């Protein structure tokens, strides 16, 4: 790959975030989150639904405003969305009116690259995610797995330093998900990007991530950050290893405790 982007780390300090579901009410989604994601590492945010892990990701993306605290990358403070932070959503969020090729060309064009050079670059990323032959298809004509490949290629083609992934494989069937996880690891090893990956699937987090932050619900806090590191083994059969199963069980117990906590009525 001739990717000129430079992976950067992320330093989050004392981040809190409130949202307003109705006028006049405020709900705290994130409470005093501090987190450091090392340059080039794969970091999973794990937690029960509603724990604010997506909110945290959207804050890093600059889609939600930083209200209290700060988020800093090597390029400075995060204040708005930017092409240094690429994002992949669970619902793909491809432009349905553009073909696969046009979707991927969009971010390339925004970088000022046009013509044959842009097409070459788009084709490289289409090949990378194994969508060769589907350049002229519209997203609506593709399966969920293929749409997510296209979305991943679109994001990678814009050459971000950091890849933000919001339950990207959550809408896929189990088989497709396994294949996509393997391929994502392959791409990550090739590009060396810093990845923040939101999931509620413990095994997925343990399989993919260097480090896993377990979050608690309402308001979202980082309960613990553990290292996993099975992803460095480049071994798809890692699922069968006893130490992998042990790690999954250990983290599952932590998440389980958070789910039980979240079920209890909120006290004032």
């Amino acid at each position, binding site marked *: 790959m001739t990717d000129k982007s430079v992976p950067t780390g992320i330093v989050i300090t004392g981040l809190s975030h409130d949202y307003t579901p109705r006028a006049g009410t405020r709900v705290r989604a994130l409470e005093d989150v501090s987190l450091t994601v090392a340059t080039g590492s794969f970091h999973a945010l794990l937690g029960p639904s509603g724990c604010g892990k997506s909110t945290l990701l*959207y804050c890093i*993306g*600059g*889609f939600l405003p930083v209200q209290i605290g700060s988020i800093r990358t090597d390029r400075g403070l995060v204040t*708005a*969305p*930017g*092409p240094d*932070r*690429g*994002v992949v*959503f669970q*619902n793909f*969020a*491809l*432009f*349905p*009116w*553009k*073909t696969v090729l046009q979707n991927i060309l*969009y*971010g390339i064009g*925004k*970088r000022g690259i046009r013509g044959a050079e842009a097409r070459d670059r788009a084709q490289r990323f289409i090949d990378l995610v194994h969508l060769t032959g589907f350049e002229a298809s*519209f*997203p*609506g004509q593709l399966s969920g797995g293929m749409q997510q490949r296209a979305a991943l290629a*679109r*994001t990678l083609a*814009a050459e*971000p330093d950091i890849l933000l992934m919001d339950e990207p494989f959550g809408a896929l069937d189990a088989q497709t998900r396994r294949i996509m996880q393997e391929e994502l690891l392959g791409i990550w090893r090739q590009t060396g990007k810093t990845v923040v990956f939101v999931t509620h699937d413990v095994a997925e987090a343990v399989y993919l991530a260097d480090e896993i932050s377990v979050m608690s619900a309402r308001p979202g806090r980082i309960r613990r950050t553990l290292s996993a590191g099975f992803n460095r083994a480049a071994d798809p059969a890692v699922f069968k290893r006893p130490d992998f199963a042990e790690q999954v069980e250990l983290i599952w117990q932590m998440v389980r405790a958070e789910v039980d906590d979240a079920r209890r009525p909120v006290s004032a």
Partner: protein
Amino acid sequence: MIGRIALRCSAFLVLLAGWEVANRLGLIRPFLLPPLAAVAARLAQDVASGAFFLNAAATLYRTLAGFALACAIGIPLGILISRRPLVGWFVEPIVSVGFPMPAIAFLPIFMLWFGVFDLSKIVMTGFSAVFTVIAAADAGTRGVERQLTWSAQSLGASRAELFRDVMLPAAMPQILTGLQVALPLALIVEVASEMLMGGNGLGGMMVNAENYADSVGVYAGIVEMALVGGVAVALMARLRRHLLRWHPEAAA
């Protein structure tokens, strides 16, 4: 395709047959319902003399000019309503009052302002269509997923580019639905304006025939309007299929 067209035409054939039978049996006086053959002959005469094309062109020119005006103003306004609070504050209440208003009531005012020729008719037509267009663009824009705009932003789109790159195409299915309602509306109001103001065009020609108690001419005018309206609506549906070929509805 041909079978479907034949099926649709058959309904009109039944209607025309009823017309002819009613005439032949003398059920209705010829002045109230002239013979089909007389109307057909007048139609052929209008086509041969070119009067039909001149009148249809005059009506269509003003309809489409007004319609284009409604699109040029209505689509940006509709998109901005939910995105720019100031635009929403100003336009939304006006649209909600203007939408159910009988637009043609404004004709005397537009005649005073813009005279009795093409301009006042074009403004009248555009005015009648613009509320539908605004409402459609507004509804279409409100439904746009935030992930779509976020994706574009993180790929490097500026806030201004979001309107052209994301909002407009994402709202396009609903905008086109609005346009499909607004175009016949514009045509109706254009013909009504011609009938009230006179001059050329299909409505003007018809009101002329009416003034001379020429009932064959009135019926021929109705058939000519139906033809022009039908073609305009069919072309609009074609445009929709072309613009939305990416949309799942295109596969159906």
